[in-house]
């Protein structure tokens, strides 16, 4: 897809100003993330080091081990040193044995110093390095498959599968791929993001979604590899990182070669009532992993418009996108990995609704010309009238074509009713296909009048965004979140779940993954 000349004639100084303000607003939060760790970050380190499995109650060994370390020496120096110090003692065959013993009270941890410190550090680095090596290999495998099978042209068609049962999901995902999906998203069971551990194994009992587990990731990726080969095009897989286990899930995604991940700097705060500090710390580490894994993140601004009004709150979407961009770049992601989210959520009863949507979509397109935007279909105004819903989805598809969106979630006519039926997906793809083909070059004929309705609306939203960013840069992002700026949901900095998992890093804090990832720097775009 060749980028089109900009149509909105945005004031470029204002655009630059907005970016500068986002950087200023993000700075203290980045500093927070650099100086703190969380239980989930530490568990992710152990996962990279190769620790898997769970106890009889289903609690993963990484949780058991981190809890044991925390009890003995605290987490402020990270788990790596105490754990690899204990391993180095030779008393424990491997990480798994150590974890089991620790859980049973049969292992003691200390903070090694001197030679012990050096040795533990070396061991930790080697183990975690191996994990990162596996992520690198997964990335290479993806590159090879992309070269061999071919990468579908953008826009990519993104379809959700959500039966709750991985063994129903797999054939549905394969059917969706055969019907034209470029990306399969398996969404999670309603409860999972609040679990402070990642469940294990293949699962069949989710509600309105399937549990994100390493084994489910593996099964689905294998199924999609199979269908990719059959179809001669690489079918991407995505899942949700956001939640209490963001760093770990990001790690598992890297290991199992997922291709994209829902990962937002604020989604967990606003929509899952997860503690703000916890979230900002977790998201940084998880994005460092994504950066390394060559995973494209999808941010969640679309969600704001399900609670806030899409016209009144249009600028909050843009502000959040600028923040997500800033946090993402800082964590090492590159522009092509920033699937910033937005959505077609303006009330269809509003006069000029479609043009307002076009203004917003084109604004986002021009603000982030190199980001693969994730464009979400109408959800809030989808009712039980499936015929009208099907029509609204068509206009969403049309807006995507006219404004060159790149990751197109496919709207379902039953959005207002049930999680998608098999036939919904098929009908939805028929809808996408018609609009894409029948209007293939229509963007050529879409020329918003200079200073006309669309241009004016875009300029207004940009101006409101700058205004809001100024306030946030001055008063702080935590204050803004506490005030209900995003999704009109108030989340105080000390509220929500998971704050007890946040730990201030001590001076000697050591995280071999963090260290490796910080130094690595960007790895570049896939071939």
């Amino acid at each position, binding site marked *: 897809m060749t980028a089109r000349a900009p149509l909105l004639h945005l004031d470029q100084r204002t655009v630059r100003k907005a970016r500068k303000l986002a950087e200023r607003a993000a700075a203290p939060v980045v500093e927070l993330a650099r100086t703190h760790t969380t239980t989930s970050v530490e568990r992710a380190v152990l996962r990279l080091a190769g620790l898997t499995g769970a106890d009889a109650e289903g609690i993963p060994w990484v949780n058991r081990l981190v809890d044991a370390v925390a009890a003995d020496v605290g987490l402020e120096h990270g788990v790596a040193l105490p754990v690899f110090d204990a391993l180095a003692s030779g008393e424990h065959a491997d990480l798994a044995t150590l974890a089991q013993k620790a859980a049973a009270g049969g292992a003691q941890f200390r903070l090694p110093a001197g030679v012990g410190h050096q040795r533990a550090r070396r061991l930790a680095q080697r183990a975690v390095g191996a994990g990162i090596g596996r992520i690198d290999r997964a990335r290479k495998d993806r590159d090879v498959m992309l070269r061999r099978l071919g990468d579908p042209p953008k826009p990519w068609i993104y379809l959700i599968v*959500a*039966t709750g049962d991985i063994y129903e999901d797999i054939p549905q995902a394969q059917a969706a791929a055969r019907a034209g999906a470029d990306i399969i998203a398996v969404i999670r069971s309603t409860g999972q993001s609040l679990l402070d551990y990642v469940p294990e194994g293949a699962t069949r009992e989710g509600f309105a979604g399937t549990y994100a587990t390493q084994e489910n990731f593996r099964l689905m990726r294998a199924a999609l590899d199979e269908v990719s080969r059959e179809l001669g095009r690489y079918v991407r897989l995505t899942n949700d990182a956001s939640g209490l286990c963001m760093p770990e899930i990001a790690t598992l995604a890297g290991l199992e070669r997922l291709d994209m991940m829902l990962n937002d700097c604020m989604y967990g705060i606003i929509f899952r009532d997860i503690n703000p500090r916890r979230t900002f710390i977790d998201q940084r580490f998880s994005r460092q992993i994504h950066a390394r894994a060559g995973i494209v993140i999808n941010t969640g601004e679309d969600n704001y418009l399900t609670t806030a009004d899409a016209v009144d709150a249009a600028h909050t979407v843009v502000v959040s996108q600028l923040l997500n961009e800033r946090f993402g770049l800082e964590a090492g992601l590159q522009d092509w990995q920033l699937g910033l989210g937005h959505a077609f959520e303006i009330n269809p009863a509003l006069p000029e609704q479609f043009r307002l949507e076009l203004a917003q979509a084109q604004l986002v397109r021009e603000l982030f010309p190199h980001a693969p935007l994730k464009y979400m279909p109408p959800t809030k105004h989808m*009712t*039980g*009238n499936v015929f009208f819903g099907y029509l609204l989805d068509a206009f969403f598809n049309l807006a995507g074509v006219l404004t060159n969106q790149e990751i197109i979630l496919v709207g379902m006519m039953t959005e207002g009713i049930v999680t998608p039926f098999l036939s919904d997906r098929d009908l939805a793809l028929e809808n996408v296909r018609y609009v894409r083909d029948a209007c293939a070059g229509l963007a050529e004929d879409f020329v918003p009048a200079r200073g006309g309705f669309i241009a004016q609306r875009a300029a207004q939203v940009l101006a409101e965004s700058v205004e809001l960013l100024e306030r946030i840069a001055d008063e702080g992002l935590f204050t803004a979140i506490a005030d209900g700026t995003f999704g009109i949901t108030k989340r105080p900095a000390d509220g929500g779940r998971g704050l007890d998992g946040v730990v201030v890093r001590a001076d000697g804090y050591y995280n071999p993954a963090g260290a490796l990832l910080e130094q690595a720097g960007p790895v570049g775009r896939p071939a």
Partner: protein
Amino acid sequence: MTEDAPRHVRPYGDTTGDGMIQLSFTLPVAPGPHAEAAAAAFAAKMGLDPAMVVHAKGVGERFTFFVVYGRSPVILDLDEVKVVEREFPLLTAKEINLKIRSRLKRRMVVVGATVGTDAHTVGLDAILNVKGFAGEKGLESYRELRVVNLGAQVDARDLVERAVSERADALLVSQVVTQRDAHLQHVREVADALTTGWPARQRRPKLLVGGPRFDPASAAALGADRVFAKGTTPREVASYLVHELPAGGPARRSR
């Protein structure tokens, strides 16, 4: 169907056996809670359980339109499903011409028309005209077929009269308008006209009926020999025609 396909099936929403279906209909009831309850009651009487009335919209003051989703209790035994399978082999144009030649020793005559007040000719032409349908050439393109296309709005008796004079081997009748069962009525008129108007000693021509809304299983009830539904191609019709030729030697006509 593959070997391991199940014999008993239910509708599939997103899980095997969930039985989920969608329904829409209008009731002559003013919009409001009573109407919604009526819609739920209607769906329940159709067997849905649970039934979710997900959309209700007044149409004027005396009607309400509904969309309902729900679980149907019906379990279908696929082995009991009767399907009008093609009872004849699909032949190539060459084979068809050859068979007519060898069995009939003359060209086969087919007379086609859309009868009654129905003016739709596109379906009939798709079968008869050289241009054909779905990439297949129409019956006119077969060397051994003589096609008389009378077009549309033809009276049943006129059709039979013409068929008599053309010494037709087959009558091809198209019907597209189905409102108030117009198509059924018109086909029965042809069957009757054939019974009364066809010379007693002559072999009665085959009566082929076609159109998008016929039930493939209704031939007998209509007094026709075969019904062709939506999507029929010319070659299917030609293959059927030769299949119905008297098997042994040339069919001789009594005068």
